[in-house]
């Protein structure tokens, strides 16, 4: 039994690379972010071909909200491989985002305002927590 000599999704990966290149051009020329969804494309189960083509970049962001997400830059600056998982760890979305910073990483103004209100009480809250533990 030999390994794959031909990866069946090579043709699709070629098309995806061209789409990503087009999104990058739009980002450079118009500052317009874009993305393409991977999860529902008939890529090979491991998505190895695309992963090998894009490679690993310098930054990875871990998001721990309703589920855990990883947002890692590929070896092509501005091209991000984003994987969202639910609270059981199941991957629920996988996409390539082309942006200077992915939209979900930026803090929302309302969230920032709520945090700003909470901040002055942070030391008292921490003291209360310490006392409870003690």
């Amino acid at each position, binding site marked *: 039994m030999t390994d794959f000599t031909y990866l*069946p999704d090579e043709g699709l990966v070629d098309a995806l690379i061209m789409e990503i290149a087009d999104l990058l051009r739009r980002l450079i020329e118009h500052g317009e972010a874009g993305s393409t969804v991977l999860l529902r494309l*008939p890529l090979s189960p491991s998505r190895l071909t695309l992963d090998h083509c894009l490679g690993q970049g310098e930054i990875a962001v871990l998001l721990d909200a309703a589920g855990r997400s990883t947002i890692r830059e590929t070896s092509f600056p501005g091209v991000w491989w984003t994987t969202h998982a639910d609270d059981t760890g199941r991957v*629920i*979305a996988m996409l390539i985002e082309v942006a200077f910073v992915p939209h979900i990483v930026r803090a929302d103004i309302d969230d920032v305002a709520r945090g700003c209100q909470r901040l002055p009480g942070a030391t008292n809250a921490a003291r209360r927590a310490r006392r409870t533990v003690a």
Partner: protein
Amino acid sequence: MDDRETMTETLCAMLARRGFGRRSLLQFAIAMTSSLALPPSVAPVMAANLAKAKRRSVIWLSFQECTGCLETLLRSSSPTIDSLIFDFISLDYQEALMAAAGDAAERTLREAVAANKGQYLLAIDGSIPIKDGGVYSLTGGRSNVEMLAEIATNARAVLAIGTCAAYGGIPKAYPNPTGAVGVDDLVSGKPIVNIPGCPPVPEVLSGVLVHFISFGRLPDLDDRKRPLAYFGTTIHDQCYRRPFYDQGKFAKSFDDAGARQGWCLFELGCKGPTTHNACASLKWNGGASFPIESGHGCLGCSEPDFWDAGGFYTPLAGGSPPGWRNAGIAAAVGVAAGAAAALAARGRAASARHKAGPSPEETP
């Protein structure tokens, strides 16, 4: 917080109360737009709409069914059905899940219909038997036909969940002793969404519900009233084995070298080319796999009358079922009669393969 307050609280307020921020909602919206095949740019709009949305009442009636659809949906993810129940919908009546029984259950149903008249979504699983006055399936002494007619009248829309509710399914299979039919055969004048599958892909129901809650309307449907986002293409078109079909590389028997290398299962009876569903992209069991990825052809379970559409192992193009049966017999004989007989059987199998054409190992 009581039930009435929970129903009027927006999702955004509820998430904030639980300590979740905008990112949680955006994370969820990205997953749902991805599932619904909407452009990723729609995710922020969906998140904003969901933030303002209130919970929707859902009444779920089970008719002539095996509870497989509900079992599957309870094990769904993205989002899990329990989070849907608590976050997006108010599941006001479901016989298998609710604590109430008997008269109390009947009262619950009447109250839910009265309180949400014209606004609730009606979910149905199971076919409806109409032969002999519908006597083959009754709940609280009332036939399924009678209940469907009454409850559908005041529903905003009807969701037919599973192949039985959509098209009659296995109960309708020849000779159809109970006169089973699907919801669409009986209900008129209401929007109907068919979510076929035996069982259906759970994420399709989640997607339909979230689309309805966030945009206030049902998703686009095809001519069989199935959501286009999930049923717009065939399994074959989304299958990772499809390039091998295009190259004419077909597995000749289960677990031969070609099958293990991902070659197309068309000649083993796969019904993917004529079956519309999202199994190949959304997959099953937490995204682990789907039948074709696990080495078995598609049965076509989301298509009407799939049970009567010929053998599961007969190729769509016609001809004989696959050679695995002969190989299996050969192996059994080999075990029983010893190594010499096994070698002879393998020899016969190899000879048969040569008659049928070169095996994948022999193909250059």
